[in-house]
């Protein structure tokens, strides 16, 4: 009997807003995050980092550190596996420098001691001799002919000949004939845009507690978005078997992509192996900024042609991303997302991934997409202004729809862009009057979303309650969403289900919580696992009634007989089937393992009002509305939370956040004082509208929602500010001095 609970309407539990299962722990301080774990005999570690942007490591002398009371071990690159290749080598090289320190903050050695203070003192006592090398931190300068080469031979086969060795990946796509398209246009605008590197800014610094013995068996506790990935990478770097390392994901204090990779975990394990004691390693905030993974900075050129009726005739974009001292700047994502909202006959996009002497970039919420939207939606806004066209009409006229060809190649399946545009246009925000000094901006945004390897296991208890083990760390309330979906299938109350994030020894492989995949993929797996349990429950009922399995169906927590062979039996409640399950065939479980490939893309449209102080150039966001397609909102409150959080991060990116490097190649603002994320008094309430265009690839229609919300804000705010001051803002962040200069350029 194949059970299929697919539906997109008439839900009992899905779409309600129950309390989250981790709520009580989190409001009482009991929830255990990365730095909250201890172990008997635990040591504390500290990492020695390069103060130089680019330097050959001549000598590391740890003798003074090792001579200190309480110091138990020092590790350098020599304590890690050799012979790694590809991205695993890149990650190790980033975790602990080999021959060369590649950026300010690059780890060169680490020490473990009996207290955090001793570890810090010992770290300072490690002496490193460097030979300084020329450095470059700017993306355009790193591509110039005279730029120092970060690492020769790092470029892959995609890079055309003749480019600087710092250009390590290249992407180009498109269709039609853009030159012919531009020739048809009534107005063509081409502009240059830049954005600065920003950091995910999670409030919890990276933290872990590792134990590894000479027998090659280890335990690791850490805050991560994906502990199977941590397991795989750490095992490789320490030369142990993957399965011998059990990794447990702590509660995670924010990730936003930044905790999809590793920075300190192998170091704690290497120290532990050497000292034969558990080792705790916690980054300071300055280390988080200097040596974890911010997003790329960009340099972009976008050219769009439009007819006077608003039809886009051609679009072309060149996107240069600096990804730090390693390949990986998501230039192809930037290029693919750039024109995704529009149905274009002629489109061409090019991406360059460029290395610089900066920390290895990591994913940040829809990696690469927000910057592209900033450039593209700014040009569209300018075209609308100059042609006197309504920005919604133009976007609707050119919008991607089911069956139109995406800018990156394939035809679109069912998508919800038009629905978000229409809902945004109908929102009272769009027609509310603006005050003097205020401007309004809108923008669309797009993100792909992702499926990925997923395992979920569900176990019934004798009392009819259920436990679900999922392997995707809960970064936005997903335990509640999983429990809601399981409740829907099992027909038991949400409160009767406990969802746990299983460790790597308790469940099969799970890809990282990234790509907005959790509610989609773990949700799908949870539904399938629950369906498997329901099938078994029906089988047990059939056996009790002595009727064929096919004659039993499941409804609202009851097995019920149906069909001609069913006979007349009173429905059996789930508790009646689980109570004696040990005697009727054994424990009742369900599980599901797959790589679901039906992640639906998500589009959003944002509206923002910004107010600019004409004397100082200071910008305040005074009203903000997010409209986004969620496919199906499993827990609408948490969907709203994702919308609001993404918008807030986008506001920071647009206005005040940036990595500031000095001429010496050192990061100048490695703290929350001068890396200015929005504070409570900076923001208005953020209004949300959930649009639901079901994703055919998910049983309940879910689309990932976590990332798309950060795609439109940069452009929407830039458009609002540009409209407020009457000058196009082409550089982010729009710090006050930049806005003031724009105002002066207008007056002068």
């Amino acid at each position: 009997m194949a059970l299929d609970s697919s539906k997109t309407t008439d839900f009992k539990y899905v779409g309600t807003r129950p309390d989250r299962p981790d709520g009580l722990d989190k409001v009482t301080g009991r929830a255990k995050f990365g730095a909250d774990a201890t172990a008997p005999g635990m040591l504390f570690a500290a990492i020695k980092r390069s103060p130089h942007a680019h330097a050959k490591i001549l000598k590391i002398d740890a003798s003074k550190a090792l001579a200190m009371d309480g110091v138990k071990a020092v590790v350098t690159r020599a304590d890690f596996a050799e012979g790694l290749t590809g991205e695993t080598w890149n990650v190790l090289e980033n975790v602990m420098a080999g021959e060369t320190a590649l950026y300010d903050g690059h780890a060169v050695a680490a020490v473990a001691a009996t207290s955090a203070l001793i570890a810090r003192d010992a770290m300072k006592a490690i002496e490193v001799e460097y030979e300084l090398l020329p450095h470059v931190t700017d993306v355009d300068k790193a591509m110039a002919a005279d730029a120092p080469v970060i690492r020769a031979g790092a470029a892959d086969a995609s890079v055309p000949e003749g480019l600087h060795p710092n250009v390590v990946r290249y992407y180009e796509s498109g269709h039609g004939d853009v030159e012919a398209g531009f020739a048809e246009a009534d107005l063509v605008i081409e502009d240059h845009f830049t954005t600065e590197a920003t950091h995910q800014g999670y409030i919890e610094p990276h933290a872990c507690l590792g134990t590894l013995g000479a027998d090659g068996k280890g335990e690791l506790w850490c805050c991560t978005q994906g502990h199977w990935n941590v397991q795989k990478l750490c095992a490789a770097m320490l030369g142990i078997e993957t399965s011998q390392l059990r990794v447990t994901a702590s509660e995670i204090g924010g990730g936003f992509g930044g905790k999809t990779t590793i920075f300190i975990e192998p170091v704690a394990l290497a120290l532990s192996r050497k000292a034969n004691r558990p080792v705790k390693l916690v980054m300071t905030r300055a280390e988080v900024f200097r040596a974890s993974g911010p997003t790329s900075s960009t340099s972009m050129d976008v050219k769009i042609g439009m007819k006077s009726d608003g039809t886009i005739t051609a679009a072309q974009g060149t996107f240069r991303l600096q990804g730090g001292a390693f390949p990986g700047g998501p230039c192809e994502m930037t290029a693919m997302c750039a024109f995704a909202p529009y149905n274009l006959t002629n489109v061409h996009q090019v991406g360059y991934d460029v290395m610089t002497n900066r920390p290895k970039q990591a994913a940040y919420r829809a990696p690469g997409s927000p910057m592209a939207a900033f450039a593209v939606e700014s040009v569209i806004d300018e075209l609308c202004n100059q042609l006197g066209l309504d920005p919604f009409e133009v976007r609707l006229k050119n919008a991607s729809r089911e069956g139109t060809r995406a800018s990156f190649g394939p035809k679109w399946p069912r998508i919800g862009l038009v629905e978000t545009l229409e809902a945004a246009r109908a929102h009272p925000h769009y027609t509310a009057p603006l005050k003097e000094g205020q401007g309004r901006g809108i923008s669309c945004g797009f993100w792909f979303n992702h499926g990925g390897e997923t395992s979920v296991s569900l176990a019934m208890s004798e009392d009819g309650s259920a436990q679900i083990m999922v392997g995707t760390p809960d970064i936005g309330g997903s335990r509640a969403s999983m429990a809601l979906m399981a409740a829907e299938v099992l027909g038991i109350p949400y409160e009767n289900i406990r969802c746990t994030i299983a460790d790597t020894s308790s469940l099969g492989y799970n890809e990282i919580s990234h790509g907005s995949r959790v509610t989609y993929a773990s949700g799908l797996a949870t539904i399938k696992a629950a369906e498997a349990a329901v099938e078994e429950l029906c089988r047990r009922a059939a056996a009790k009634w002595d009727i064929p399995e096919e004659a039993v169906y499941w409804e609202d927590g009851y097995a019920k007989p149906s069909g001609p062979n069913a006979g007349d039996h009173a429905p059996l409640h789930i508790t009646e089937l689980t109570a004696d399950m040990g005697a009727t065939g054994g424990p009742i479980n369900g599980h599901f393992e797959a790589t679901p490939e039906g992640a639906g893309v998500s589009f959003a449209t944002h509206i923002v009002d910004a107010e600019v102080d004409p004397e100082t150039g200071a910008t305040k966001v005074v009203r903000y509305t997010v409209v986004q397609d969620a496919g199906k909102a499993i827990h609408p409150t948490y969907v709203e939370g994702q919308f609001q959080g993404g918008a807030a991060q986008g506001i920071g990116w647009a206005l005040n956040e940036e990595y500031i490097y000095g001429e010496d190649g050192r990061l100048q603002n490695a703290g929350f004082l001068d890396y200015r994320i929005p504070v409570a008094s900076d923001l208005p309430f953020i209004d949300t509208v959930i649009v639901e265009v079901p994703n055919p690839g998910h049983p309940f229609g879910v689309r990932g929602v976590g990332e798309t919300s950060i795609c439109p804000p940069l452009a929407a705010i830039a458009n609002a500010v540009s409209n407020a001051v009457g000058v196009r803002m082409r550089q982010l962040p729009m710090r006050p001095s930049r806005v003031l200069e724009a105002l002066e350029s207008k007056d002068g």
Partner: protein
Amino acid sequence: MVDVALWSGLRPLVGGQDSIAVEGRTVGQILDSIRRNYPALAPTLDAGVSVVVDGRVIASSLTEPVGENSEVVLMMRLKGG
């Protein structure tokens, strides 16, 4: 034979064609055919690609079926935050 559309960065590697015709009933078979018949594309496949089949982005599954008339587009592998 299935037509597989290439992103334009790949076209120089296959003599300027914007798509290539290969055998295969699944994503895996198609990728194998590409690897066999167009070795210049192998490093790209190794670096990671997604295959879009009739608008569905197949990120990693090799067993996804591909029909004779399916629209198949190669795409660089997606990353997420």
